[in-house]
């Protein structure tokens, strides 16, 4: 991907934001390239949504400047920016049907009827909602509403699409599916995505570049691999690093092989035998009697952390970190298992 990324499309130059004495953002500087999928990752209240609102034109920086194509954006109101947003709560227009929701931006541009019909039709195709044109948005499921929100923004053919935790309200399965769809859309449309989330797994699986934020400051910026492998500070390593990351391969979609075994997973869109990173969170690994689980190992250490024990487990040539509510003495053999949805797959080697 990196090869396609041109010079910066959006540049934030020492942007600060404060409400009175309350400072939200400190000296944010970053570049977002054309066709880049950039994720701003951080805990709630870290200022990531404020960055989106500054880019969207709903807030103005207290100091610093934002450039689009090297032209400053200050003074350009939201409705004149070639930037569209997918809001956290979808914010669909409940008085309009699906078609009119998507056509909203086109009608403002006063496009001819046939063109609106054609463009909306193509968008409905893209988000798999053909045939839903006349439905009222409130009668649709959360996943469907989210697709409409995305279609409504994309139909305007923005230079940049801002997404504010767009999958937060969806259940796990839908979220996985939408992650893949979003990533595919971004690649095929060639639009720059700026994606905000607090979910590190989401950030790491989808992005070209990740910006880790905390308390209004950028902690680290880089490719997902960089962020994983070389966290430069304690916050990043805490926020990102507490995961088990192993090398693996995808023999085919929905199946990953690591540790000498094949595991069913929920990830799709890989070429056969593609090399991947496998991420499994410590709290997603469950412990059972040896021989019962899918893998077995020896307990290296076990430390009580208040609500759970943090265990280090040696399994083959890998060391697992596991959070478990029950203690297992050091030296004992235990089995471990995890569900398909606990396995997170990251593409490896891309752009390297």
């Amino acid at each position, binding site marked *: 991907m990196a090869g396609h990324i041109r010079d910066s499309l959006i540049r934030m130059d020492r942007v600060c934001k404060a409400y009175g004495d309350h400072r939200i953002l400190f000296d944010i500087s970053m570049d977002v390239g054309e066709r880049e999928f950039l994720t701003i990752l951080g805990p709630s209240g870290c200022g990531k949504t404020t960055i989106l609102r500054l880019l969207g*034109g*709903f*807030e*103005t920086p207290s100091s610093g400047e934002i450039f689009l194509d090297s032209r400053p954006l200050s003074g350009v*109101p*939201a409705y004149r920016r070639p930037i569209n947003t997918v809001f956290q709560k979808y914010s669909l227009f409940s008085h309009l049907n699906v078609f009119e929701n998507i056509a909203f931006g086109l009608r403002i541009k006063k496009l001819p009827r046939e063109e609106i019909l054609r463009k909306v039709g193509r968008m409905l195709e893209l988000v798999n909602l053909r045939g839903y044109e006349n439905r009222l948005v409130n009668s649709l499921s959360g996943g469907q509403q989210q697709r409409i929100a995305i279609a409504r923004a994309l139909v305007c053919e923005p230079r940049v699409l801002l997404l504010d935790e767009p999958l937060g309200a969806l259940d796990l399965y839908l979220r996985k599916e939408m992650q893949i769809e979003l990533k595919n859309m971004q690649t095929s449309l060639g639009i720059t995505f700026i994606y905000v989330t607090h979910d590190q797994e989401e950030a790491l699986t989808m992005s070209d570049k990740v910006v880790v934020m905390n308390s209004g400051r950028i902690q680290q910026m880089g490719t997902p691999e960089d962020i994983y492998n070389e966290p430069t500070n304690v916050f990043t390593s805490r926020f990102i690093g507490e995961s088990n990351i192993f090398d693996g391969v995808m023999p085919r979609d929905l199946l990953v092989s690591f540790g000498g075994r094949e595991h069913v997973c929920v990830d799709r869109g890989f070429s056969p035998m593609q090399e991947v990173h496998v991420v499994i969170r410590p709290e997603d690994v469950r412990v059972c009697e040896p021989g019962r689980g899918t893998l077995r190992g020896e307990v290296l250490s076990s430390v009580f952390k208040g609500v759970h024990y943090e265990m280090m487990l040696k399994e083959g040539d890998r060391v697992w970190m596991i959070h478990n509510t029950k203690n297992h003495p050091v030296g004992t053999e235990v089995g471990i298992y995890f569900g398909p949805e606990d396995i997170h797959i990251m593409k490896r080697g891309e752009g390297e």
Partner: protein
Amino acid sequence: MKRADVNFLQYPYILWAGLFIFIPLVIVLWYSFTVAGADGDAVFSLENYERFLSPVYMQVLSRSAVLAVKSTFICLLIGYPAALIITRLPRMWRNTILLLLVIPMWINFLLRTYAWMVLLGRRGVLNRILEFFGLPGQEWLYTETAVLIGMVYNFLPFMVLPLYSALSRIGKETIEAAEDLGANRFVVFRRVVLPQSVPGVIAGITMVFMPAVSAFVVSALLGGGQYMLIGNLIEQQFLYVGDWHFGSSLSIIMMVVILLTMALVSLYDKGASLEGGNLW
């Protein structure tokens, strides 16, 4: 910030509310503290309020108050058992019954009162029924009884609704717990139900008392004009006597009485619905 274009909408309203809600009250207040001077100018004076203290007007006030208290008391007496019964009804009945209770309030106050003229007339339906049973017809209309009936009729739903909302909030478990502890039904009522319904009682009392104190249509139609209440006195001062100063001071006194009652209510009960007061 980006909505600046429609923010101007608050200014016309500020102007409107000032002109048609706030200033009129100021004018009334101003009238109440002035009297017409020798050369027709208004002169500051407390005369209107002093005049109110004279026996004739105190009598009107006390009559209004007594009548309002009486009708409030009767509403409470009739309304409490009714509210209690409604809370004990099956859920699906309850809403229908409450709706039936509210419907008459939708109908013009004046017409509801006029309807009683038809019922209570010398040759009206009530006397017809009495005569059917061989009882002598009575002179109902233009008596205090008629005014009282009219008030109870018009304000009863305002009593029942807040009572119902307070009573329906008492959990079945509370009552069962009390019975479990050995209380008989009378004790349960006196010690559990009654104390917990106090906010509803207070809300009901104010919601009946307020309109009853300011009523002038009921007394004008069913009392036949010879039955003067403070509302009629205000009407008279403004429309027939033309002493707006005195009329205004009467209105201010009435508002103060009502505001005090409302303050009292909000002290006792923040939860009970005052919204019933908006229904007509």
